[in-house]
């Protein structure tokens, strides 16, 4: 039963980056099936002010309701805090395909946006520059590729 619920949740999409599922984002912390029609879901918000969190909760509710649960409790767990390290490998690949550069890994992630090299998700060139530290959503910065000249979003490190 728990596995079934997990599968349903895993397929719910991030409302702002619809190629990612909640599983890719790594926001599902725990599932407790309390009864045949009662379930508790624990999720960790990505950014404190992210409006997508409320929409995600509604979509979880809807998916579970359709699956036959009538009593759905969603609890936010803020500790340990979500970090971009929780993005799955599959999620990172989907981001590149979608045209968003995934957060850099390793040592560089503590450097914020200074001195990091973000490869262009379109042509792979390392010759890119930051246009704006804040982008279209709370999680993104705006970059431009110097080789193919395309602007692109970068999923900022949060750690």
């Amino acid at each position, binding site marked *: 039963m728990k596995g079934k619920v997990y599968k349903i949740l895993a397929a719910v999409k991030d409302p702002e980056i619809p190629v990612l599922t909640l599983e890719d984002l790594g926001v599902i912390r725990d599932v407790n099936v309390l009864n045949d029609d009662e379930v508790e879901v624990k999720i960790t918000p990505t950014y404190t002010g992210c409006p997508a969190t409320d929409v995600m909760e509604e979509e979880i509710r809807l998916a579970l309701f359709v699956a036959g649960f009538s009593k759905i409790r969603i609890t936010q767990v803020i500790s340990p805090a979500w970090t971009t390290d929780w993005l799955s490998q599959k999620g990172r690949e989907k981001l590149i395909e979608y045209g968003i550069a995934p957060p850099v890994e390793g040592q560089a992630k503590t450097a914020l*946006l200074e001195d990091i090299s973000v490869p262009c998700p379109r042509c792979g060139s390392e010759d890119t520059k930051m246009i704006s530290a804040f982008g279209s959503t709370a999680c993104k910065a705006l970059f431009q590729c110097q080789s193919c000249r395309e602007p692109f979003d970068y999923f900022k490190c949060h750690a």
Partner: protein
Amino acid sequence: MNNKAMLFDYVLHLADNQVIMAQRLSELCGHGPALEQDIAITNISLDLIGQARLLFQYAGKLDGRDEDQLAFLRDVHEFRNVLLVEQPNHDFAHVIVRQYLFDEFNFLNYQALCQSKDEDLAAIATKALMEVKYHRRFSRNWMLRLGDGTAISRQKMQDALNDLWSYPGEFFEMTGGEEILAKAGIAADVASMKPTWLANVTQTVKEASLVIPEGDWHQTGGKKGIHSEHLGHILAEMQFLQRAYPGQTW
């Protein structure tokens, strides 16, 4: 005052700092000097609203009111934010200087709170600190760019710094309850942060070719509920909907 009331007051102070700063910044949504700055300021505002929500939700657990009641149904004298965050936007130089002075403090304060013995506060601070790092980077870069820019931008930045310099002193004042909570390892010991804050700010101000204004005197009152005339105007706008249509939700 018992421990619970002291903690409530303290959490409310933290929440009020974020929500009033956020409300001020939100006034610039659609009015930023350029598209990128407009988006940046709005994003920072949104982060601070998110942080305020977590803090209000926690305060509400101690008090029984919900986050909306705490944000929208308290009057001026019940707000505990520092006076700096309610100061008007005036011009972009004032926005940046105000933000930078606040970000340097917010960063140190959250950093200390990550070690709080209160698990809820530590969890909120850990999350918030990740965001404030980006805010501080933004405001610091603009301090440097405008301070070290043209003669006009430098003059505007110096004027803003002179205007706002009497406010940050209040960051480091502690109420009686805060001192007790700090001794218990729950609240941050803000008084001890002043030298680090001043060293960081002095470094940036110098790098920006600006001058730290003279004088040690500072404004005070916000943490005790005594505010400048500006807060009433902010609340009139921020609270309008809940006052006119009580209990409305999205």
